[in-house]
Structures are given as structure tokens and as C-alpha cells.
């Protein structure tokens, strides 16, 4: 028996969400009294792979010929390693959302996504997950002997540990029914799903020319920039910055909403953040009901002051 974790990398680098999945899987392995094995897909250095040992993995299988975006190939490689696994852990990334359901069908194992805690029972496996756009917590039971668990990003945290890691290379090569023609990513920008802090602007900012202060604040805080739906619909900011129900989901440590009233559709996409700050001229703005901290005031006065104050402590 073992616990298996899919350790996703981006251009040969792991991210915080990967180490979070390993930490979670390691805690699960302890619960079951067994070892943790990781699977890595794509080109990656041994130095990078070794970092998995710091979070509790005892072995990693590195299949460098497999492209993770090819869901069929990725699924069959992970399935090959899953014979012995009682629990298979993913972080709920875009790619994992393609692979974990496929794996569930291929191996006929119950899969649960958006999981926020380590299992409260292992036979049968019972976990808590977020549902109804974080308006409820669902307790779910897995009916199959084995289970696939995808954890909600930033819900569990990192747990460091000491240990030795064995690296095993796999030269397996498979190909599914799609061809990947390349990726387009905004270079030098912090991605919204990975950012610990997100600074977001709404219609209260009155026009795209006023985003300078949002970007300055974000730079100071090493944060990603985001916007509300109306702002991307009017074209003040790119659609890739739209956060909320139909846009990207945010689960940051700190979410700062500037000039965003807080429509329920917006809150549904950002309310997984740990701390939320609202800055708005309207004291009746619904965001103040969801926020932890708030300032009723004009963004054009408050944000420059905020920038000044943060400079003092940085």
C-alpha cells in the first residue's frame, strides 16, 4: 500500500501548490501508516525533484517524456503507478482537473475535488470539500476501496519534514489524441492562481488610465493584478484578469478589492481568500459584508496613501 501524489511542474519548476499537495499526501500517508510516492511529468532537474523530499515524499517517478497537457497520456502514466496506491492526491490546478476525473474513470475509483482537510476517516474515506461556490461545506464518502483527492489551493498549507528521496526515471512515452502547439503566457507577471496577494480593481476606478496605482500597489506587495467582470467586459483590462464566478478563482492569503461593489458573482470567485480588504466610496457596498477590513473612501485618495504607508514598512 502507498499514497501517490501527482507533482505538477511548470517549465521544470514546482510551485507552492505542488508542495501543498505533497504535504497533504504526506499527512494522509502517516494516517495510513504507509509511504508517499510522487509522480512528475515532463523535463525537470534532479535538484528540483529533490525538493519533494522536504515535504515527505520518499520516492519520485519522473516521466520526462510525458507532456502534462496531454490528458490521455498523463492519465495512463499515473495509472501505471497507481496499482499499489490507496489514495491518489492532486492539487486542483487546471491540468489536474483534466487528469483526476480521467483517472477516476480509468481505474473506477471515486474522485473528490475541492477538498479542504485531511480525511476524518480512512475506511471508508470521508473528507470535507467546498461546494456551492464556497457557500457550503460538503462531507463526502468514497464508496470505492481507493480514492482520488484533489485539494483546493491554499486550503491546507505546507508542512516541512526531513527525509530521503529516491529518484526513479521512467522513459515511458505515450501520446493521446491531441497535439499541443505551444503556450502563451504573460511573462514577468505573477499569475492570479499562484499569487499570495491579489490587488483587484473595479468600475470605481473610472477608466483604464487609472490602473497605474493598482499596478504600483501590486508591485510593492509582490501581488498579482485582477479586475471585476464589468471592467474586463468594457475592455479596460484583459479578460485574463477577470476574477469571479465566470472568470478565474482566487484563493489568496490577501485579496484587496478597490472600487468593486462586491456582486455575489464576484464574491463567489474570490471568497476562498483568507483575508479580504474592501476600499469603496459606498458604505452600503455588499463587499463590506464579506470583507475582513474596509475603508469607506475614495480610491484616488486612499490608494496613494496606502502605497506610501506600505513603502514605510518595506
Amino acid at each position: 500500500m502507498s499514497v501517490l501524489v501527482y507533482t505538477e511542474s511548470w517549465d521544470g519548476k514546482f510551485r507552492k501548490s505542488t508542495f501543498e499537495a505533497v504535504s497533504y499526501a504526506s499527512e494522509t500517508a502517516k494516517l495510513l501508516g504507509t509511504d508517499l510516492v510522487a509522480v512528475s511529468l515532463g523535463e525537470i532537474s534532479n535538484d528540483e525533484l529533490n525538493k519533494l523530499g522536504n515535504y515527505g515524499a520518499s520516492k519520485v517517478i519522473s516521466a520526462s517524456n510525458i507532456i502534462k497537457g496531454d490528458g490521455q497520456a498523463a492519465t495512463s502514466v499515473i495509472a501505471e503507478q497507481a496499482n499499489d496506491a490507496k489514495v491518489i492526491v492532486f492539487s486542483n490546478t487546471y491540468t489536474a482537473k483534466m487528469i483526476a476525473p480521467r483517472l477516476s474513470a480509468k481505474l473506477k475509483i471515486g474522485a473528490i475535488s475541492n477538498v479542504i482537510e485531511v480525511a476524518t476517516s480512512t475506511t471508508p474515506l470521508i473528507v470535507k470539500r467546498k461546494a456551492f461556490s464556497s457557500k457550503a461545506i460538503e462531507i463526502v464518502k468514497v464508496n470505492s476501496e481507493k480514492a482520488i483527492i484533489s485539494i483546493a489551493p491554499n486550503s491546507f498549507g505546507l508542512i516541512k519534514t526531513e527525509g530521503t528521496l529516491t529518484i526513479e526515471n521512467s522513459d515511458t512515452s505515450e501520446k493521446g489524441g491531441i497535439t499541443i502547439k505551444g503556450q502563451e503566457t504573460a511573462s514577468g507577471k505573477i499569475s492570479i492562481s499562484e499569487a499570495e496577494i491579489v490587488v483587484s480593481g473595479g468600475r470605481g476606478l473610472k477608466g483604464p488610465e487609472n490602473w497605474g496605482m493598482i499596478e504600483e500597489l501590486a508591485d510593492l506587495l509582490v501581488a498579482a493584478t485582477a479586475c471585476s467582470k464589468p471592467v474586463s467586459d468594457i475592455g479596460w483590462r484583459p479578460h485574463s484578469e477577470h476574477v469571479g464566478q465566470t472568470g478565474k478563482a482566487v484563493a489568496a492569503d490577501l485579496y484587496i478589492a478597490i472600487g468593486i461593489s462586491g456582486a455575489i458573482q464576484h464574491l463567489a470567485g474570490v471568497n476562498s481568500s483568507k483575508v479580504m480588504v474592501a476600499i469603496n466610496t459606498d458604505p452600503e457596498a455588499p463587499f463590506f459584508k464579506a470583507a475582513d477590513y474596509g475603508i469607506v473612501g475614495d480610491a484616488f485618495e486612499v490608494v496613494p496613501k496606502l502605497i506610501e504607508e506600505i513603502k514605510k514598512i518595506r
Partner: protein
Amino acid sequence: MNIVVCISSVPDTTAKINFTDNGSNFDANGVQFVINPYDEFGLTKAMMLKEVTGGKVTVITVGDATVEAVMRKSLAIGADAAVRINMNATDSYSTANEIANYLSNNPADIIITGRESIDYNGGAVGGILAEMMSLPFINACNGLELSGNTAKLTREIDGGKENITAELPFVIGGQKGLVLESELRIPNMRGIMQARSKPLEIIEPSSKEGLTSSVSFEKPVEKEACKLVDADNVAELVNLLQNEAKVI
């Protein structure tokens, strides 16, 4: 071109989410149900593709009779036919299994699901369905252009997008970007009238076997009231974020 769009009937985003019987069941009382927003992007894209290539758009839902309202709405928007599998959808695997059974007898060129439903947020039906049918699955798909049997697709990835080509048939998990928000269609009177005479077929489920089951629901812990800081005292906000919340 045969396009099948999997539709989920979900509580409207503004609905209050409550549970009955000690948290064991969702309380549908007074809740308005709508087409899952991610599915609506997919349905609109299906209509646009059909207008170019010709063919048929079928919507399929797994659910009891209460889901028929959103199915009729899909027909009013322009789908040609609707299929309801008469089973309460309680688990992604059994839901996908029923749809796969239907598709094995009624093959489709493109199968569209939403990226996730806004009620259970499982996000798994599309992927399970694709694996059951040995088809490619492009999730969080935000672009699809068809020329003959080849499609150019884009999918959202962390921090950007990935460009993909695939041959028909395939499954996509749709979202905004497939079509623009402004392109979503509102049913007109003619559509609503026509929808009444379009076929809505009801199929009994083949098996009800699920791999997961819901035990109960809880409401999240209520947040404390927002701490308001005076607009003239921005330093206090920074102090709270640094020393109380410890996030900067």
C-alpha cells in the same frame, strides 16, 4: 455535425443556500434554477457552430422532472432536441456513465460540458465521460475554431493559455471565452413557442452505481464583521494587515 451539450440545472448564483433534515439535503424551497453559467457558454458556442456547419444540437441533462424548465429554456435558445435521463445526479461518475451510455447509441462529433457546475463544483463529468469514451478532453476551453474535422482549441492554464489541435470527436469543458458574455442568447417569444413542440425525450437510467456519496452539508463559519478603518488613517489598515492578519 452532431453536437451534444450537457446541461446542469443549478441554483441561481444569488440564491440562499440552505439545507434540510440536519444538513443532509439541499433545500430547494424558493430557489430559482438556471442553466449552469459555464454550460450556457457551451450551448451558445454549439448554436454558432451549427449555424456554420449545419447539423443538430442536442442538450442532455441527468435529473428528475424539475430540471425540465432549464431544458425548455435551452430549446428556446435554439437547441433542436433535449434528452433527460431520469435519475437524481448525485455523483459525477454515475452521471457521466449515463451520458456515455446515451452517446454510445447516439454518436456525437463534439460533446460540450461546462468547466464545472456552480452547485457541487465537482468539475469531473467531462473528464470521466471522455475517458469512458476514449476521447480527448480539453478542459477550461476558451477558444474553438473548426475547419473540416480539425479543431484549433485553446485552454486556460495557470498564467496563460495553451494552443491545441484535435480531430473530431472530442469532449470540451467550456467556459467564458468560447463565446463572449455579450454573445449569450436570451430566448425570444418565437423561440419559446417553438420550444414547446421540440422533442424532450426521457430515458430511464441504466444503472445507478456511484463511486462517491454525499454524507451531509455544513454552512461555513460566519465571518466576523468587517473592521472599518477611517479613510484618514490608512496607516492603521497597514498595521492591522501586518500585525493582526499577518498577511503583509
